[in-house]
């Protein structure tokens, strides 16, 4: 594996009193596209939210580029070059498309320009003056992804970018994610849609009951298909 960009070890996390993550371990190499798979409620989203510091009650170790981030607030973590695209997308409803794109602060050099983002998402260019809430689900998802590409963040955490979208849009988002990987972004993707994940990822981590229970490389997916189906209950 290439240089390790993100290393999560013994991560526990809580929502209030309920203990959600019970010692999550995995790592992501620079330039890799890695997925977290698993059924509903196994802690995939919580893992992303803990990495971003949105879940504040967490113990264990999350090292980004060798630096420990557990204990830091969310905005400090974001400024080190992590960007999160949440499942609910979080488009700012009173800002238009372009204002949403321009809002996130640039944290490092090397981010994409607004023109490059529009080239990647031509729909957004057409709707640049539309208010965030007036977009279709697919456009909102594109905006949510596009928004974090300008900041210079090199690790993208994408939470179910295909949820609730039409197959043709899912296809399009898959192409875009592959293109982002080719551009050198490191991507940690949470997915329920295994067919989508299998198409784009280098490796898959499988989660169950708040832990990572297995790791399957893209090349080994075929011989492990039965096992994966059991994990995912499909």
């Amino acid at each position: 594996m290439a240089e390790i960009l993100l290393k999560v070890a013994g991560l526990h996390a809580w929502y209030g009193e309920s203990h959600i993550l019970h010692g999550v371990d995995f790592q992501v190499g620079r330039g890799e596209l890695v997925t977290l798979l698993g059924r509903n409620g196994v802690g995939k989203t919580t893992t992303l939210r803990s990495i971003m510091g949105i879940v504040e009650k967490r113990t264990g170790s999350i090292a980004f580029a060798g630096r420990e981030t557990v204990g830091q607030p969310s905005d400090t973590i974001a400024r080190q070059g992590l960007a999160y695209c949440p499942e609910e997308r979080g488009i700012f409803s009173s800002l238009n498309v372009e204002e949403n794109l321009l809002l996130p602060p640039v944290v490092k050099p090397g981010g994409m320009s607004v023109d490059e983002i529009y080239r990647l998402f031509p729909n957004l260019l057409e709707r640049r003056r539309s208010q965030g809430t007036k977009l279709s689900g697919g456009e909102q998802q594109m905006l949510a992804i596009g928004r974090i590409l300008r900041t210079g963040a090199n690790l993208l955490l994408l939470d179910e970018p295909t949820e609730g979208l039409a197959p043709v849009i899912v296809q399009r988002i898959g192409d875009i994610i592959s293109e982002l990987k080719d551009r050198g972004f490191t991507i940690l993707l949470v997915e329920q849609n295994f067919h989508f994940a299998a198409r784009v990822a280098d490796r898959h981590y499988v989660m169950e009951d708040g832990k990572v229970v297995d790791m399957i490389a893209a090349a080994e997916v075929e011989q492990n298909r039965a096992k994966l189906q059991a994990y995912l209950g499909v």
Partner: protein
Amino acid sequence: MMKDSQRTLVIAIVAALALAAPWVAYPVFLMTALCFALFACAFNLLLGYAGLMSFGHAMFFGMAGYFYGHVVKTWNLPPELGLIAGVAGAAAIGLVTGALAIRRQGIYFAMITLAFAQMVYFFCVQAPFTGGEDGLQGIPRKPLLGIIPTHDDHVLYYVVLAIFLFGFGTIYRIIHSPFGQVLKAIRDNEQRAVSLGYEADRYKLLAFVLSAALAGLAGATKAMVLQFATLTDVSAAMSGEVVLMALVGGLGTITGPVIGAFILVTMQNYLASFGEFVLVIQGVIFVVIVIAFRRGLVGELSALWRARFQPRSTEPETAD
């Protein structure tokens, strides 16, 4: 939204009205209304754009009046220094109370600001420099900048209009700046703004201090106009009144609080003969507005305008 030509026309008409007004209506009434309009705009900057509900804005408005009175009357300094003292004093109170209040959200934030405002009120009742129940009376109207004769109501009106436009312009610039965009983002979805790398508390504190300073400018100007500073202006009722002005006009619209302030000041003026019943009438209006016009007068009118005159295909601009 309106076309540019229509917008220019509306601005020209409003400007002509504003310039001619003191020759038609009583200047002191107009000046009072302008002071409240600026106060309501300052409050709206915080609630309408940063989503922070303060129940204690009278402390900035009223204290600035005392600062103005103290500087101009007791220390016998020129009025421009009184205005600066009012703004700086209100900003300083805003910094201290804001730093503590913004750590809490929603109703707790509102309650903390209310608690501070009550402390300030009781401080003003007791402290020697405020004149207690009597307030500071007979603050002289000395020449502004050494030359402008503010004892003439008509001259002072244009001074107050200039101060109002300065404050209003400042708020307009703040709302349309990148800082204003971040404020709106925090209002829409604070957690998301933070996880994009914004330290939301710093932005909220700055918005709070700016709002306090502008409320202070309004309060100091009012003391200059009416030549007194009283307990009424630091009272909880005043904090409630500014909420009402912003709501009646329309929260989160730039002109709404101005309209709301004029409506309320006019009502208080013309219904003064009803005595305490003004409060009952105000209460009824408040209830009607909240139930029937959730977006306030300006908010509802601009929504009507868009529905009536805008083809469905074009997108409305971002609300401002």
